[in-house]
C-alpha cells in the first residue's frame, strides 16, 4: 500500500456540518476528505475550523474542478494553488475525477469523456502535467454517467489505458461502478476484478437514487445500498483492504446515521482482514 498515512474508514467534511463534526474523534473516523475548491482562499470562522480539523485528522483532497479531460486549457495556476494548500495542511493525497466539468467555461458538475484512444492520449498527457507540477502522483476516480459519448472503447479499457499511459493512481468508487453497470449494462464484479490492484489508493462508497430499473443517479444523498456493500467486499477480496470513504453530499441525516455506515465500513475491513489472516495462519 502506498498511502501509509491514511487507513481505515473516512468521512467527507462539509461546511454545513462543521459544528456536528467537531465532536468526532479518531475513534469515530480515521480520516477526513474535502474538496480543496471549497476551502482554498477561505478565511474567517470556516478557515479556522478547517485548520483545527486538519490538525486533528489525516486529510485527503478530492477535487471537483480540475476538469482533467476538458477541451479548455489546463488551469495550471489552480493546480499550483492546490499544491500550496496541500503543503500548508500536510495533505499527501489528491484525487480527481476522470471526466470533464468545463467547455468554454466551468459548468461545476461532471461529464463523461468519450472513450477513444485519442482521449486516452489527451487526458494522460494532462494528468502527467498535473503530476509534474504537484511533484507527486494523483488518483483518478471512475465517475458515474448516464449517457455514453461516442467512442470505440469501453469504460474499463479506457480506465486501464489511462492508468498505464499517465502512470497515475486510482480512486475506486464502488458505487459508481454499480451505477454504471446498471446504466450501461456491464458486469460490476468483472470490472472491479480487472482493475490493477497496485494502482488503487483508496475507495469511495455512497448511496444513489433509483430513477428507473435501468437508470440510477449517483446523488450521494441516500444510504449505501446492499449491492454496493457487496461490491465493497469483492473489492477488498480482490485488491486487499483499502482506506474507504463514505460520501454524503445531500439529504444529511443525523451524524449518528453516518457513523453507523462508517462503522459498517470498519466491520467490513475487519472481517476481510481476519479472513486473510486465517489463510496464512
Amino acid at each position, binding site marked *: 500500500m502506498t498511502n501509509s498515512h491514511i487507513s481505515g474508514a473516512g468521512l467527507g467534511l462539509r461546511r454545513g456540518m462543521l459544528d456536528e463534526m467537531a465532536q468526532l474523534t479518531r475513534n469515530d473516523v480515521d480520516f477526513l476528505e474535502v*474538496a480543496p*475548491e*471549497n476551502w*482554498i*482562499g*477561505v*478565511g*474567517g*470562522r*470556516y*478557515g*479556522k475550523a478547517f485548520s483545527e480539523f486538519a490538525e486533528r485528522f489525516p486529510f485527503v483532497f478530492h477535487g*471537483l*474542478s*480540475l*476538469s482533467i*479531460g*476538458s*477541451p479548455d486549457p489546463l*488551469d495550471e495556476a*489552480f493546480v499550483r494553488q492546490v499544491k500550496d494548500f496541500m503543503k500548508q495542511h500536510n495533505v499527501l493525497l489528491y484525487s480527481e475525477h476522470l471526466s*470533464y466539468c*468545463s*467547455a*468554454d*467555461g*466551468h*459548468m*461545476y*458538475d461532471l*461529464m463523461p*469523456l*468519450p472513450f*477513444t484512444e*485519442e*482521449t486516452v492520449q*489527451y487526458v494522460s498527457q494532462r494528468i502527467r502535467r498535473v503530476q509534474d507540477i504537484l511533484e507527486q502522483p494523483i488518483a483518478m476516480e471512475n465517475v458515474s454517467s*448516464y*449517457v455514453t*459519448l*461516442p*467512442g470505440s472503447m469501453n469504460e474499463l479499457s479506457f480506465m486501464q489505458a489511462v492508468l498505464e499511459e499517465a502512470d497515475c493512481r486510482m480512486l475506486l468508487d464502488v458505487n459508481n461502478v454499480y451505477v454504471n453497470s446498471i*446504466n450501461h449494462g456491464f458486469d460490476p464484479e468483472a470490472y472491479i476484478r480487472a482493475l490493477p490492484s497496485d494502482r488503487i489508493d483508496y475507495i469511495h462508497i455512497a448511496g444513489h437514487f433509483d*430513477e*428507473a430499473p435501468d*437508470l440510477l*443517479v449517483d446523488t450521494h444523498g441516500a444510504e449505501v445500498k446492499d449491492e454496493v456493500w457487496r461490491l465493497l467486499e469483492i473489492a477488498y477480496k480482490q485488491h486487499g483492504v483499502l482506506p474507504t470513504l463514505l460520501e454524503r453530499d445531500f439529504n444529511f441525516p443525523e451524524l449518528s446515521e453516518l457513523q453507523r455506515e462508517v462503522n459498517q465500513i470498519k466491520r467490513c475491513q475487519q472481517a476481510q482482514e481476519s479472513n486473510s489472516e486465517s489463510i496464512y495462519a
Partner: protein
Amino acid sequence: MPDTAIDSPEFIQTQKQFAQSIRDPLSSSNDAQFEERRLKIYRELFFNNVEGFVSSAFPVLKEILVDQHDESFWLDLVRQFFVQHQCETPYFLEISEEFLQFLQALMESESDSQLPAYSWQLAHWEWMELHADVADAQTSMLISTLSKEQLLNAKLTLAETAWVCAYEYPVHKISAEMPDPIEAPTYLMVYRNGQDEVGFNELNPLSATLFETVRQQPGVQTSDLLAQLAEHSGLDHNLVVSGGLEILGQWQQLCILYAEY
C-alpha cells in the same frame, strides 16, 4: 474569430456538443441521439446545481424578482447566466462573483431591462456580506483602549476585514417588503470582528471619507488625518476631531482598526 471546433479532434467536438446540449437545451440539437430521459438527468443536475449556488448567494434579489415577475423570470435569468457567461473560477464560492459580472454586463447592454435599476447594487451588497464572512483576511488584535490623547497621537492602520462600499440606493434596506427604494447615496461599512462575526454600519459621507483616507494612507497619525478631513470638509475642526475620535474608537473595538501608540 477562428472556429476552433472545425480544427479540433472529433472527441473534443463531441465534448463541446455534449456540454452545449446541457447548457442550452432549447437551442442545441441532440445529434448524438442520446436517450432524452438520460440527457434530461444531466440538464437538471447541472442547472439545479448552478441555480442553487446563485439562489443561496442572492436570496433577496431572487425574492424580489420572483415577486415582481414570477419564478420562471428568475430561472430564465439563471439560464441566461449559465448559457452566456463563461465562468473562469474553479472555486464554488466565487460563482457568485461570476454572476455579478454577468449581471453587470447584462444591465449595461440592456436599455429596456426588466430588472430593477438597483439590481446589480443589491446583488453586490448581498455578495459583500458573504465575502466578509469567508474572505481570507486578518482582523487586528484588540488592544487596550487608548485615551483620547493617546489615540490622537497614534498611527492608524485598517485591518483587511473591513470594507466600505458606496451605493446609489439604500441597498441594505431593500427587501421583498420594501422593493422600491428611493435613490440616495449610501455608504455601508461591512466588517468581520474579532469573534469572526459579520456586521455592518451605515456611514455618513464624512466617516466614509475617514475610512478611505486611512485605507489609502496606512500608518497615518490620527491628528494629521482629522486635520486633513476638517480642511477638506470645511467643517469645524473641533467637531471633526471629537466625532472622528469616537468613530475610530468604535472601529478599534470591532478589531478592524489597529492604533499604534
